[in-house]
């Protein structure tokens, strides 16, 4: 079972060079890769290019077994949003599929008149534990 830091590190290594920037009020910039949980992206930051947000807490599903084993499926949710209307997320989707071949969900929302293009993927993370009597 991975930690969110590990997931962030792998995602960064796969698509980090394609991500845009957060522009901070003091004029500095930071890579647009965020772990969303206790802290949201501050309202006074602006974004250029593509943003990647990883949910800090993964979705968890249990697979009941007849044995003493507990098979837990965690799903890390990663959301990409392209704030540059000339850049599509196709290439990043392919890179994520290549880095996480067991990823089975990739919901692509095309750009509309009012909204930016986005891509939400869930990365599975399986673990097996023993039951507590």
């Amino acid at each position, binding site marked *: 079972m991975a930690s969110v830091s590990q997931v962030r590190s792998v995602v960064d290594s796969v698509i980090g060079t394609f991500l845009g920037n957060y522009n901070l009020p003091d004029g500095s910039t930071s890579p647009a890769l965020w772990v969303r949980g206790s802290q949201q992206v501050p309202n006074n930051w602006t974004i250029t290019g593509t943003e990647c947000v990883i949910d800090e807490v993964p979705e968890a599903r249990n697979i009941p077994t007849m044995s003493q084993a507990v098979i837990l499926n965690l799903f890390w949710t990663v959301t990409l949003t392209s704030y540059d209307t000339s850049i599509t997320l196709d290439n990043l989707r392919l890179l994520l599929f290549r880095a996480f071949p067991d990823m089975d969900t990739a919901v692509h929302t095309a750009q*509309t008149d009012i909204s930016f293009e*986005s891509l939400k993927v869930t990365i599975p993370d399986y673990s097996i534990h023993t039951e507590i009597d």
Partner: protein
Amino acid sequence: MESGLQPRQLRAKFDRAAKEALKATADRLSNEFVSEITTVKWGWKGDQVTIRSDGSEVTEPRNIVDSGDLRLSQNRQKQGKYAMKWTWEVDYSALVHEGGSLKGGGSYPARPWTKTAEANVVPTGYFEDILRRELDG
């Protein structure tokens, strides 16, 4: 399952039962999708007021019905022997379901009605119950 069936009859009986179970499960899910869209249960942006197309004002919780086009666009297609596919054929259905960032600033909350409907129905369990009932007669 009833006794006295010949092996060649088993396959036909199972196919009939599976067909019935799939149809019943699909009907149940279709109704649940509509129910989730029309139920006043979804969060929005706190007290922010939206004026609907009929002139009414809503805050939260709210349903996902304004013009009704999304709900009416629900379409079900059989995909082979044991699979069904639902689509909502308006161009903003993905935005409503998944949420997104707006070009004018701010965000649009996700309202994943298919996930909540699936959680309510538990289609595999529902299918299993109907299949067992059909096979047991």
